[in-house]
């Protein structure tokens, strides 16, 4: 796409995020199978492989795949129990699905030549809106009008409450935005930085430093891939807690 101008980069660091049709070079319509489609499919497949096929043996002494599946299950289960409380466990299947999907999308994106689906706000925005709408509906169904206590803080002095209400409403509606942009932004930033360092590796004088930096950034990105999935899930649990117990 962007070719070198005056000894600059051979490739553009943002080229890796371009959505392309999987077959041919036609225009992208809503039904076109693109690289996003492919990697979304592989992500779902990887999550299913670990959770369903990994635990199929039901061994007392688990093998590696089963250990990973049990660790993920235990991590998310404990997270919901600690943060949302016992009654949040009804929504455990969705939260585990969310965690596994994001963690595999992030990790598969780190495979060389792969496409990172979570780097697109279209993908993370849908995930965040699903959480936001779901949590709002659960809040109103479970608590009725008492859900609005979330914005009208009774423990604060009466004079401060309207100001707090405005702040609470804004912070409530910025939730899907910050959820989606945090995940997508982290993925874009990390992958772009790796690509920028990879571009420096073409210059002989700084090549050794650049290659070490790429390795370091890659290791850091593996950590970030997990942490961002963890953060998304934990914030989902926090929002779920607000929906189930809005008064405190």
């Amino acid at each position, binding site marked *: 796409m962007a070719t070198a101008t005056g000894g600059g980069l051979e490739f553009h660091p*943002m080229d890796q995020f371009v959505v392309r049709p999987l077959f041919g070079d036609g225009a992208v319509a809503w039904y076109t199978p693109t690289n996003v489609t492919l990697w979304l499919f592989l992500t779902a497949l990887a999550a299913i492989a670990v959770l369903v096929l990994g635990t199929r043996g039901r061994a007392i002494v688990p093998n590696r795949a089963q250990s990973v599946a049990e660790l993920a299950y235990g991590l998310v289960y404990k997270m919901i129990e600690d943060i949302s409380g016992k009654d949040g466990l009804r929504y455990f299947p969705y939260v585990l699905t969310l965690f596994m999907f994001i963690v595999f999308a992030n990790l598969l994106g780190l495979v060389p030549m792969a496409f990172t689906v979570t780097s697109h706000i279209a993908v993370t925005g849908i995930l965040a809106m699903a959480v936001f709408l779901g949590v709002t509906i659960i809040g109103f169904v479970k608590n009725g009008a008492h859900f609005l206590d979330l914005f009208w803080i009774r423990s604060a002095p009466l004079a401060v409450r309207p100001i707090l209400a405005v702040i609470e409403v804004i912070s409530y509606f910025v939730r899907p935005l910050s959820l989606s*942009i*945090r995940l997508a*932004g982290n993925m*874009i930033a990390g992958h772009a930085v790796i690509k920028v360092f990879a571009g420096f590796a073409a210059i002989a004088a700084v090549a050794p430093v650049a290659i070490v930096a790429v390795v370091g950034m890659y290791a850091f990105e593996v950590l970030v891939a997990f942490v961002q999935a963890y*953060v998304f899930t934990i*914030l989902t649990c926090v929002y779920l807690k607000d929906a189930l117990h809005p008064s405190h």
Partner: protein
Amino acid sequence: MTGDIAELGQYIGVGLTAFGMGFAALGVGNVAGNFLAGALRNPSAAAGQTATLFIGMAFAEALGIFSFLVALLLMFAV
């Protein structure tokens, strides 16, 4: 020297957003440092607070990501 004044302003703006990311880095460091300081005083209570640590880090980091988003919008969308 080519290009117009709008492009100049655009690139200066992108450079300025780096401040936002830098200050977000200070914020995240502050969260982690204070967590460590507290955890070393009472290590037995630290394990239960890792979730809070990550939530705090996520909130501090989000604002830096917002400034990164502004940079991306200036570079590729405006």
